[in-house]
């Protein structure tokens, strides 16, 4: 098994590299510099997650029903144009959305949450719609055939089958959301952007990284968390990850 040996060597190299990085950071005192910002990082991380939770939570609550409604047969006439509108919305840069919401909501948490909400809403709605539309017609017909009402069909057949695609949308949207929150600093809502932008202003790489590294970790963390929830929630029979 030459491949196995090879990964073993790689792993060893990685361990040595991490060890060397530790030695280097210890000797240069970078760690101490980072520790200086620790209270800031803690305070701002909480603020950051709060912004994500508020805007992301609102977006999920609004987007999923919206996606479901749009995917109903009676809405087919409007669904395409609605999707087009949402697609256009997705392409607007988040910074522009934040700037717009600042112009009519003032500054601080409210416009930031609203801006992030709009930016997060679109991918979730779209994936919900696409997921439900993608359920095989044969399944839907079978459900009607055994006498299910449209509502029963939605809850028992369509949603479980679309769940995996819907979760993919939530995952993407929330990861983007976490990565966008730093921009909220610019409209006075705090978050880890404070360290990033102050670090840029002051030409202080350590301060900048004190904001950038936690932001990255949060984005990855949120992504993994949602993936884990999806793994648990999506039923075994329709879950590609558990097939």
């Amino acid at each position, binding site marked *: 098994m030459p491949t196995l040996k090879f990964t073993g060597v790689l792993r060893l190299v990685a361990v040595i590299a991490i060890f060397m990085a530790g030695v280097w950071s210890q000797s240069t005192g970078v760690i101490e510099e980072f520790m200086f910002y620790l*209270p*800031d990082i803690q*305070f701002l991380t909480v603020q950051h997650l709060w912004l994500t939770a508020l805007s992301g939570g609102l977006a999920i609550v609004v987007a999923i029903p919206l996606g479901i409604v749009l995917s109903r047969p009676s809405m087919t006439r409007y669904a395409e144009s609605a999707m087009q509108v949402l697609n256009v919305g997705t392409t607007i840069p988040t910074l522009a959305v934040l700037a717009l919401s600042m112009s009519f909501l*003032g*500054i*601080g948490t409210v416009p930031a949450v609203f801006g992030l909400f709009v930016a997060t809403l679109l991918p979730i709605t779209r994936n919900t719609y696409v997921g439900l539309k993608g359920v095989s017609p044969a399944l839907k017909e079978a459900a009607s055939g055994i006498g299910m009402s449209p509502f029963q069909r939605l809850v028992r057949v369509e949603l479980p089958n679309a769940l995996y695609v819907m979760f993919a949308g939530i995952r993407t949207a929330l990861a983007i959301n976490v990565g966008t929150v730093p921009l909220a*600093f*610019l*409209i*006075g809502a*705090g978050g880890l952007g*404070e360290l990033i*932008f*102050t670090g*840029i*202003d*002051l*030409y*202080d790489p350590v*301060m900048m990284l004190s904001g950038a590294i936690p932001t990255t970790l949060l984005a990855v963390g949120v992504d993994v968390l949602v993936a884990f929830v999806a793994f648990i929630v999506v039923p075994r029979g329709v879950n590609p990850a558990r097939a």
Partner: protein
Amino acid sequence: MKTLTTLLTGAALAATLSTAYAEEIVVGGKNFTEQQILANMTGQYLESLGYDVEERSGMGSAVLRQAQENGQIDLYWEYTGTSLINYNDVSERLSPEETYSRVKELDAKKGLVWLVPSAANNTYALAMRESDAQERGIASLSDLAQAVNDDKGLTFALNAEFYARDDGWRPLQKAYDFRVGRADVKRMDSGLVYQALRDGQVDVGLVFATDGRIPAFDFTVLKDDKGYFPAYALTPVVREESLKANPELEAQMNALSAELNDDTMASLNAQVDVERKSVEQVAEDFLKEHGLK
């Protein structure tokens, strides 16, 4: 075909050579209104004098200074106190004249020349809504420190740079002996501070003394009764090499510097921030009015 290639190559070569020989001056600016006006005004002024100008504004102080030391920026308007405390780490309290001569001397070693200072002193200040300040009986920074220590629950808006500067937030709290909790300090873009203070989202805001929004929004500036802030005389700072390459530049920049004082700056800033005119327009009007364009 071959001649065509030769022609094209020749043309391309000529183009690169001609740009290399054109004397280009890169004018820098920081990330708030006054600096955007100054950078743009300087750009228009020098262009009308026949220079080839590139304008780069919107940077934080430290970044801009770094760029000038590296030779990526030829000239920008700096404040004496900023250089004294932040770039040269001088902590003694000096008079405005001493401040100027000290930074002139220290920065000369780095190849940066301080020209004649203008009469504009754009110091940092903390401001409150006038009615609110009267109600609370706060007129000076000592009163403010007292109010903070009495736990009056005051909230602050500061810009990113001030929070971390050597003449900024932490030393200010030390000098006046007060401590504001992390949750009561909101940091934001310089321009947003005025809006946040006006709309009552915070009680105290960091302002620039020459900002036109202070009178327009009915703010009162708290007196720096312990003389914490240094002098911040607005002065053109140019790289020595650029001055050598352009012998007339010094006199030309001094002519512009002579036209600026506190009132002019406040009025220029107000035209942009309060009357919503464009930076370019305000700069152009000023130059024409003073016969500099």
